[in-house]
């Protein structure tokens, strides 16, 4: 059957690079499940937002897919046990992060049974409302699997003001070497399409575009076939040319719709929602199968590994085990990168767990060389390739001299850190590092500012409290003094009026006090009396 595919009109984004793909090396073999590890180290922060707190204890038995940590805050995602076993530790362990700082993880000794917790599979999800489905997506711990790891349920709720018209499913996978999305589309096209329909239903998007780069003909074929088999009219595969970074959210929107996302806005502001293909499949698994996000496709590739391939990996599996299952390191392996060569970061060890956001382990064979950085010659090559239409030179200038205000005037936060500028720089300046430096510094300043504002409020409050206490003390003192003054005046007055016959106010006070004491005693029904009590308090 030959079908004429509608050709979707495409636009270009500014700049970009044509890069060598290196993808074929890891797509030869079908994806298999990685061997069930004996020990899983599951980080509790695998998403953007608040860290999940453990809901099981050390020593507890957990089942596959059971929630082991969660957080009630809106921007967060629960974490599930990737396999059945026993929780043996909850502590800080190294996780893949450029800082190398450890974070809270849960260690599960697997029992080898891989026994599932109860799964609630739905056959007809459309009986549920979008809100209920979104709740299920949240409970399944789904985050953006393209690498940003933003909680998907939040993204699926763009708010009442922004109606989503177009759903874009991102299967571009523009970064060299990485092929996990490619393999996912080839092997799970049906789940992908069902997932797309679900997301479309949840955000009531009119139509859905699945964008795939033209270097993945098999994935394109599989997905198209699936769409045709189900004769869907509002889902369309759009083949985009292979240019890096077409997979960037804003770049892809520009290619497909010619619209631009506002500088400090979101795609939902212009009626667009972008989701990764992996996320769409995860949504399908969560709704139709009742399976939370506990595994993902990971590409293990590069010239430094013996048999590059893709594996379906449980979250928390150690990277070293995956390298082993890919034939181990080549003797010339030199550098382990999480992610791709452009945007990934170097890892210092392979004893780190796979997280939800880990799409690729790249082993390079070129030794880590610190390129001889030369002065900037103002050639402008960086500005030519910048897909965000920024001025990388100016950003570099201001970032390196810590002019954090100017660097924001040049829209630092529109930088997607794609690395095109560093790639083309003839002076080998590590430009992106400067931008990352500036970004984290600015965030830090913001945190400091909030903290100091808070301290000011507390200090002012304390000051006010001390002042108030002081005033209250003074007031008391003043009142006492006044009383005394009055008494004295009255005394003097009395003394002046009638000298002898007038009752001495002091005496009167004593008498009154004694009377009061007697009354009190009578009221207490005659306790042992001591009438010689000194009523000194009133006479002062």
């Amino acid at each position, binding site marked *: 059957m030959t079908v004429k595919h509608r050709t979707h009109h495409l636009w270009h984004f500014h700049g970009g690079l044509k890069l060598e793909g290196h993808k074929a090396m890891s797509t030869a073999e079908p994806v298999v499940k990685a061997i069930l590890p004996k020990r899983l180290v599951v980080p509790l922060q695998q998403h953007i937002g608040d860290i999940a707190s453990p809901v099981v204890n050390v020593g507890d038995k957990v089942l596959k897919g059971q929630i082991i940590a969660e957080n009630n805050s809106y921007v967060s995602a629960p974490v599930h046990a990737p396999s059945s076993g026993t929780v043996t530790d909850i502590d800080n362990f190294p996780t893949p992060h*450029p800082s190398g*700082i450890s974070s809270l993880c849960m260690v599960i000794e697997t029992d080898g049974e891989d026994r599932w917790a109860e799964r609630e599979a739905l056959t007809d999800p459309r009986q549920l409302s979008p809100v209920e489905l979104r709740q299920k997506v949240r409970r399944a711990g789904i985050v953006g699997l393209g690498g940003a790891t933003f909680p998907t349920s939040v993204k699926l709720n763009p708010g009442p003001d922004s109606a989503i018209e177009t759903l874009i499913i991102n299967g571009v996978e523009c970064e060299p070497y990485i092929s996990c999305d490619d393999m996912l589309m080839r092997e799970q096209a049906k789940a992908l399409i069902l997932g797309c329909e679900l997301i479309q239903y949840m955000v009531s998007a009119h139509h859905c575009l699945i964008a795939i780069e033209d270097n993945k003909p098999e994935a394109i074929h599989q997905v198209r076939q699936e769409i045709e088999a189900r004769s869907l009219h509002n889902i369309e595969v759009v083949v985009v040319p292979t240019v890096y970074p077409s997979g960037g959210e804003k770049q892809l929107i520009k290619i497909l719709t010619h619209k631009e996302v506002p500088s400090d806005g979101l795609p939902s502001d212009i009626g667009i929602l972008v989701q990764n293909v992996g996320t769409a499949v995860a949504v399908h698994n969560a709704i139709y199968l009742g399976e939370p996000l506990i595994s993902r496709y990971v590409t293990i590739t590069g010239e430094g590994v013996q048999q590059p391939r893709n594996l379906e990996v449980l979250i928390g599996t150690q990277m070293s085990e995956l390298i082993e299952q890919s034939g181990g390191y080549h003797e010339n392996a030199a550098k382990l990168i999480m992610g791709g060569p452009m945007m990934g970061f170097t890892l210092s060890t392979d004893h780190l767990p796979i997280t939800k956001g880990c799409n690729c382990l790249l082993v390079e064979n070129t030794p880590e060389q610190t390129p001889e950085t030369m*002065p900037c010659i103002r050639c402008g090559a960086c500005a030519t390739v910048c897909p965000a239409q920024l001025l990388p030179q100016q950003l570099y200038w201001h970032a390196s001299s810590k002019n954090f205000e100017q660097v924001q005037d040049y829209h630092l936060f529109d930088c997607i850190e794609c690395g095109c500028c560093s790639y083309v720089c003839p002076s080998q300046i590590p430009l992106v*590092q400067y931008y990352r430096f500036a970004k984290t510094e600015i965030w830090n300043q913001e945190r400091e500012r909030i903290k*100091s504002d808070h*301290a000011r409020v*507390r200090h002012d409050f304390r000051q006010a409290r001390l002042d108030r206490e002081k005033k209250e003390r003074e007031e008391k003192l003043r009142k006492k003094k006044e009383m005394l003054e009055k008494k004295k005046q009255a005394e003097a007055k009395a003394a002046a009026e009638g000298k002898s016959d007038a009752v001495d106010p002091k005496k009167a006070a004593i008498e009154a006090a004694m009377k009061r004491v007697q009354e009190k005693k009578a009221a207490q029904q005659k306790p042992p009396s001591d009438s010689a009590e000194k009523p000194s308090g009133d006479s002062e």
Partner: protein
Amino acid sequence: MSILIAVITLAIIAGLFGLLLGYAAIKFRVEGDPVVDKIDALLPQTQCGQCSYPGCRPYAEAIASGEANINQCPPGGETTMLALSDLLGVEPVPLDEEHDREPVKTVVYIDEQTCIGCTLCIQACPVDAILGAAKQMHTIIEDECTGCDLCIPPCPVDCIHVKPVSVDQNTWRWPLPENQHTAPQA
């Protein structure tokens, strides 16, 4: 005659403007000194008194009145000094040599085994970050502590210690690339 008209006209105009200005001065009167607020907003609010003024606001007032220099805030470091020089339009002044360029943020903690519950530190804390009562153990609310160290000297048993603020993955900062020999001066 015409000169009289001119003089009268000008006098009337002058009178009108005088009234207008007088009205504006009352109507749009600025309470307090806005410069002090602006300076105060840039200071780190540790309230540590290392500037020799009793707190950040008094220091801000001193700067505004020209009494104090802008380089007297060790916790703020160079960043604060530069921000102040920017705000006030004065030349940057190098910090005193004894202060680091990039001050390390610290907080204090109480060795709870040693604390005798004397409340002296509670009285010293400028931001009420210490919790405790007489003859009860005291503890620092770490999130509220500004690292001013004012509680350390009053402690009779030396149970308050300084520690650097711990960095986690969310507060970690990328370092500036090392190959800085090409760093331009803006």
